[in-house]
């Protein structure tokens, strides 16, 4: 039947044309899996932090330094995303912290399904913080919710202070921007932390922009201080969420769409 006026005309004999309004996000299935991951984290009172940056900005070095600084305070684990190798996971395990390596092959980002599979290999009951080290890439990871509570984006001094203006999708939604390798800024001479912060503000993002150097342990305490504050905030929210009462129903066997890549 014709959708426009209700007459019986149709374009093809024996066939009707039909238009179905949908208005769903294209990544609806990923979003649902991400919500499921978040419920998992919340029911175990685990805080999940998604670390994103260009390749080589120092995500793994930051995690190594963070583990050393906070290992007596928090139980931590890391989910590592890389195209190939388990080098990063081995670096984390050498610090005495569990690490699950996801090798994505040629995929340029982690998605919620990959993180979900990794979660089942982690002792969530014993953990306080799970760091997800995303694939080094300032474009693709921005589009995929993984179920994290906070997004941290690293911008290293060698990359240039205008990166937020070049990659607005990534930097617009950051909850924290860490200017990394800032011990090199003096040598480079052309990286201006104030300009980087201004570029973040022009994306209407009020996130803190902090300068650190993980290798030289410079101002690492402003990062660990931020992290400690966020853990307190997120755990307070988890305590009043019904899912935190320990009755999270694990229904992933029939929750996932098999067609999602």
């Amino acid at each position, binding site marked *: 039947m014709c959708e426009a006026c209700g007459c019986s005309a149709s374009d093809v004999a*024996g066939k009707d044309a039909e238009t179905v309004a*949908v208005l769903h*996000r294209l990544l609806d299935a990923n979003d649902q899996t991400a919500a499921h991951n978040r419920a998992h984290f919340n029911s175990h009172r685990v805080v999940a932090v998604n670390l994103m940056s260009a390749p080589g900005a120092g995500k793994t070095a930051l995690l190594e330094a963070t583990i050393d600084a906070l290992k007596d305070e928090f139980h931590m684990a890391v989910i590592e995303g890389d195209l190939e190798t388990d080098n990063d996971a081995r670096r984390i395990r050498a610090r005495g912290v569990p690490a699950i390596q996801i090798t994505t092959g040629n995929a340029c980002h982690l998605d919620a399904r990959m993180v979900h599979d990794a979660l089942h290999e982690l002792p969530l009951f014993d953990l306080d913080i799970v760091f997800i080290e995303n694939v080094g890439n300032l474009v693709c990871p921005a589009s995929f919710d993984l179920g994290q509570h906070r997004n941290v984006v690293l911008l290293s001094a060698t990359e240039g202070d205008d990166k937020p203006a070049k990659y607005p*999708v990534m930097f617009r939604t950051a909850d924290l921007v860490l200017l990394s390798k800032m011990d090199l800024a003096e040598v480079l001479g052309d990286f201006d932390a104030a300009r980087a912060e201004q570029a973040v503000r*022009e994306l209407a993002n009020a996130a803190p922009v902090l300068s650190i150097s993980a290798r030289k342990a410079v101002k690492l305490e402003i990062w660990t201080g931020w992290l400690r504050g966020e853990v307190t905030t997120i755990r307070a929210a988890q305590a009043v969420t019904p899912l935190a009462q320990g009755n999270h129903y694990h229904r992933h066997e029939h929750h996932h769409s098999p067609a999602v890549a």
Partner: protein
Amino acid sequence: MHELSICQALIAQVSGIAHERAGRITAVHACIGPLSGVEAGLLADAYPLAAAGTAAEGSRLELETAPVRVRCRTCGAEGDAAPNRLLCPTCGDWHTDLISGDEMLLLRVELEVDDPPPQQTAMESSHV
């Protein structure tokens, strides 16, 4: 190049709709904003590849975009903005909320559906 993954998610959604309606997909309409993180041209290129062998094979992908618009928290003004300069067009403040431009939406699906069998139509009309 995450557009292929996103296209596969799109095909999975529309295939589900085609299955429910027992129809063949002729066109898919989606809205991709400049701040969605998806490149419309790459999505269009990926579409025939992702659609091959599915209920969407041979269908058209129609993409529309949405303007980047902000509302100022300070002065309340609304207006257009550049994707990397989301400032208030009236007072210049950066304390704004994005009100359009990050869409990544499946809007509607056009299907070709077989007419119901004639005897069923006759039964239905006898009840009216």
